[in-house]
């Protein structure tokens, strides 16, 4: 079995990126401490995909990484493939929506006069254009 089963997962990539972005402001050691990890190597293991991010660490790690906890929770839930408890959470409660995503939905509601527009192929093209993709 691979020693880094979660390498290249969205969560591992995101944490690696955030650590780099925060480098001028705080060290990885500080991030580990603020996240509540007694062993600072844990952040390295999560970043490299050797270990999963435990769901109960999401709020403190989101605080340490200065990111939306809903986003980090969604990435952590994605990573728990095969974990029936996490799957049950998503099945019952749905996926967490970030503040930015709510911002997008509010803009879509305002732009469409609250008409609850369908996601059509034209809408997809529009969104791709908006994001330059």
């Amino acid at each position, binding site marked *: 079995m691979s020693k880094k089963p979660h390498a290249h997962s*969205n969560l591992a*990539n*995101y944490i690696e*990126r955030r650590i780099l972005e925060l480098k001028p402001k705080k060290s990885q050691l500080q991030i580990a401490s603020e996240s509540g990890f007694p062993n600072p190597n844990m952040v390295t293991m999560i970043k490299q995909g050797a270990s999963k991010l435990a769901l109960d660490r999401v709020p403190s790690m989101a605080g340490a990484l200065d*990111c*939306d*906890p*809903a*986003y980090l*929770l969604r990435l952590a839930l994605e990573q728990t493939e095969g974990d029936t408890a996490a799957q049950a959470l998503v099945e019952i*409660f*749905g*996926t*967490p*929506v*970030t503040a*930015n*995503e*709510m*911002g*997008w*939905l509010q*803009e*879509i509601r*305002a*732009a*469409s*006069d609250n008409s*609850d*527009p*369908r*996601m059509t192929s034209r*809408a*997809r093209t*529009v*969104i*791709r*254009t*908006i*994001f330059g*993709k």
Partner: protein
Amino acid sequence: MSIDTDLTENERAWLTFLRDINPENDPAPTLRQIQLLRRICELPARLSFKCHMVFL
């Protein structure tokens, strides 16, 4: 924090698409993007109004 079961089915579809095209980040809407979105969403309304006028 909200959860997506609070949303309509159409809103969930918008959200899913937004997530699919931005898998590695959580972008905030910028002013430019909002302006583009509004312009595009207003277009069908204007067209249907014009069509409505034609049939009056």
